[in-house]
């Protein structure tokens, strides 16, 4: 399976980094083709809701930053794992800023899907998504529930689905083994 990891941890010296390193090694050992993007190293200008990617340069952000790389790495995968520490009850703003800039992946036209208003897809296929979360001291079960719910809505907006939420308190190997269930 082609797996893209989007790492939303702003701190290169965190313990989660070590975990992620091991997680990637396990995935590679299992034969997966892994691409890792450390979002903190990318030039991301953030979405300002200008809709240029819908009405000026269809499918491309007008800011000419690294958001193109995020979009490509997402589409080129079978599964994209969003990795992030949990702060203030949610994933990092670094990860959310990257996700905001994935809006060129859909089309502005409105369609009805499952009885709800959504955007028309721009591409023929979209990968699945998964969440890998490193909780902090004040993270509780409700935070994880809310985070999972919000990212499953995000996935739906991106014509994808959230296949799992893994908490980085299980071993990296176990977490990597768990991906076998995702086809």
């Amino acid at each position: 399976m082609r797996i893209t990891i989007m790492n939303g941890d702003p701190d290169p010296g965190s313990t989660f980094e070590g975990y992620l390193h091991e997680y990637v090694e396990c995935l590679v050992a299992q034969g997966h083709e892994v691409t890792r993007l450390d979002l903190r190293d990318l030039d991301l200008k953030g979405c300002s809701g200008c809709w240029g990617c819908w009405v000026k340069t269809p499918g491309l952000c007008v800011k000419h930053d690294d958001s193109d790389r995020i979009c490509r790495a997402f589409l080129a995968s079978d599964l994209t794992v969003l990795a992030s520490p949990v702060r203030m009850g949610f994933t990092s703003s670094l990860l959310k800023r990257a996700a905001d800039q994935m809006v060129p992946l859909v089309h502005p036209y409105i369609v009805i899907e499952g009885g709800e208003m959504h955007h028309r897809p721009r591409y023929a296929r979209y990968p699945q998504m998964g969440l890998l979360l490193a909780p902090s001291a004040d993270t509780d079960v409700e935070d994880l529930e809310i985070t999972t719910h919000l990212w499953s809505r995000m996935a739906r907006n991106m014509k994808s689905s959230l296949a799992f939420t893994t908490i980085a308190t299980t071993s990296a190997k176990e977490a990597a083994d768990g991906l076998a269930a995702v086809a």
Partner: protein
Amino acid sequence: MDSLLLLNGSPRGPRSNSMRMLTQVAQGWQAGGGAEPTVLHLARSADFDRAVIEIGRAGKVLLGLPLYTDSMPGLVLGFIEALEPLIGREDNPRLGFLVQSGFMEPLHSRGLERYLMKLAMRLGSPHVGTIVRGGGEALQVMPDQALGKLFARLQDLGEQLAREGRFDPETLRQVAGRERLSPVSAAAMFVALKMPITQFYWTQQLKKNRAWQRRFDAPHASA
């Protein structure tokens, strides 16, 4: 007089649908006897930094934001992260929110509403309520006169905040409107949206930018 800090979390800044709605709430707040609110736009970096300081001093705070991919914009989440030092303080302000979405149905915003309620709890701030309103993008093309009923209700909410310190749940329900499309209107829209005229808001902009021919481009398609 009671003070209100009005935070506009729209990445578009002052000329945003969020700000247009917040302005109505602020009018009602002043009609209800509140002092002129301090307004800060998080999209401006100087305002962002000032907001982090002011929120620790304010009596009441109303944060307005657009829904981005069914949650908060990265800009607003960055602001929330900057509030971490406020956890555990005893005199955090009363917190209210306004969430507006492009999609019509309020159901898209309910997950975020739950997050924001939990955020208030995390900060130990009394939650005065969350205004949820769909169809926000339509405001771009609608004159004030066409929005009379919505604006009057937003003003009511501002007045309630000034007089009672919270939003009335019934007014919040009226502002939100129907939670989801009824099966009949979903079916009707499913058909109607296949007709080009219903997508005119986007078609018109694509044509203006000479991008209409390229509207279905898929530049990131992988082999």
